[in-house]
């Protein structure tokens, strides 16, 4: 052991300021996570226990009743399936379409390119409330209210995804693409064989962010899913939580658990990609 290592080991304790920082951060992170803990605990309590005061922390008589109600009487399977179908289709569409147009914007010259890119950037700022009224009129005219196409089509190619893919593909060396072209590969072949295989990281980011956005999306599904068989999870939860079940907190907390848990598991498994994704879309 060198002297340097020994002094480092012998260092008595961390400075007080750092200790204080840890203490504050631990309290803050506990407060941040408390609502989730409270949700999980509450979902297993009976209505009687939820209303009783003083409050109880651990469920005295853990019950699955709240969850069973969702499965047996409120058709959560249907809402779950709807959310999955919509999210998966939206993700696949975005992965393909955003990378295609991203490639064109990054590596090809064509008239109207600048204009197209400016439009994409402007569209990033447009709030959902601005487009949903005419969108609903159009969907009604086409007879698509309460159908999968109405839930999926408007989100198949998001401007944010185009921006993300373009930024990444611009960083791929031109020489790689030129080499493929000289070898006689067409653009489609170059795209599929050279560009796409290099796009793993941004595609992962785009896939995760799109899935998240779709799973949690609310305003448009609320407007366009008007029959119960087409509700997505958030729509179903919001309508039950404001309807006749508004005070049945056991049921509502169990519903929240069912909506949040799949994303939470995904987040814990892929947290690195989630966080990289935010940093990437934010910084570039």
């Amino acid at each position, binding site marked *: 052991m060198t002297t340097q290592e020994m002094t480092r080991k012998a260092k008595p304790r961390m400075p007080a300021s750092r200790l204080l920082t840890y203490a504050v951060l631990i309290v803050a*992170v506990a407060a941040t*996570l408390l*609502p989730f803990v409270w949700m999980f605990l509450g979902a297993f309590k009976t209505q009687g226990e939820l209303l009783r005061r003083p409050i109880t922390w651990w469920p005295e008589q853990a019950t699955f009743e709240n969850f069973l109600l969702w499965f047996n009487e409120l058709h959560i399977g249907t809402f779950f399936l709807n959310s999955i179908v919509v999210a998966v289709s939206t993700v696949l569409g975005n992965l393909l379409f955003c990378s295609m147009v991203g490639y*064109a914007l990054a590596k090809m010259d064509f008239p109207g390119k600048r204009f197209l890119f400016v439009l994409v950037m402007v569209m990033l700022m447009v709030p959902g409330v601005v487009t949903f009224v*005419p969108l609903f009129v159009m969907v009604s005219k086409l007879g698509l209210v309460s159908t999968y196409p109405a839930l999926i089509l408007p989100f198949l190619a998001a401007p944010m995804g185009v921006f993300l893919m373009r930024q990444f593909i611009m960083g791929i060396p031109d020489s790689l693409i030129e080499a493929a072209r000289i070898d006689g590969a067409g653009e489609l072949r170059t795209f599929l064989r050279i560009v796409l295989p290099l796009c793993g990281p941004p595609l992962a980011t785009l896939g995760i962010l799109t899935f998240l956005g779709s799973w949690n999306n*609310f305003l448009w599904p609320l407007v366009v899913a008007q029959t119960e068989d087409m509700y997505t999870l*958030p729509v179903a939860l919001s309508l039950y939580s404001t309807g006749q079940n508004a005070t049945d907190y056991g049921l509502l907390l169990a519903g929240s658990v069912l909506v949040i848990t799949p994303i939470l598991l995904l987040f814990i498994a892929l947290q690195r990609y989630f966080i990289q994704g935010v940093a990437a879309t*934010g910084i570039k």
Partner: protein
Amino acid sequence: MRGGSARRRRNALVAWLFALPFVLVFSVFMLGPLVSSFLMSFTDFTARDIDDPLAVGFVGLDQYAALFGNQQFLHSVSNTAYFVIVGIPLTTALALALAVALNNGITRFRTAFRVGFYTPVVTSIVAVAVVWRFILQPDGLLNVILGWVGIAGPDWLNSTTWSMPALIMLAVWRNLGTLMIIFLAGLQNVPADILEAAAVDGANAWQRFMRITLPMLRPTLLLGTVLLSVGFLQFFEEPFVMTKGGPLDSTLSVSYFTFNQFGFGKYGLASAASYVLFVAIALLSLVQFRALRSKD
């Protein structure tokens, strides 16, 4: 080069083919509605006109005039302003403090803290709003905890005074993580050697933060606040699930007002309201870009 222009035309065609799926989705579902909504805001379009949209009457600026004469709309504007003016600085300051603490204040467990603070971001607003509604009951968890330190908490969601602070609390909680991550990435770009040089010259931690870190973080701060404002100006789910816009419209946002007018079938008025919001978002972004750039 022979055939140069023919080849260029062919290349352009190929490029547009690559862009085609996006351009179709974009034109039909985004650009088209954006333009239609603008046009609709100058008509008396109602739910009954869906069958024959071209038969609506042109009413000029009447919808906008009606909007700015509508007490409920004005109330929703001031509510939205309240939400943004308090919520944005609060979220930004807390996120910056967290980012600095994680970046400079500690050496271990960074990832665990980051994941913890980021968790609310990934969850559905509807689901967390349901949970928060439960926590904010008069005898709910928050008031129980406040009771431990001797504070008698209000009936948050049924008080015109406290309903908005409660929604802001939820919004800060849910958006803190996003900004924290963006700021952390920004802090990584502040060169360590400059900070060390300043420390050698006798600058204390606060001076280093104010004179070096903060100015270098300006572009990141700008980006973070713009992203946040675009989201905050549109808030809708929180009051929809937690308060229905009440009590007495004290949490009715512009988005919620627009949604309600749509529900009443007043599509022209809804479009006008949504355009006012759009302009506000564009203007605020512009102002923030200017404000944060001007000191360069």
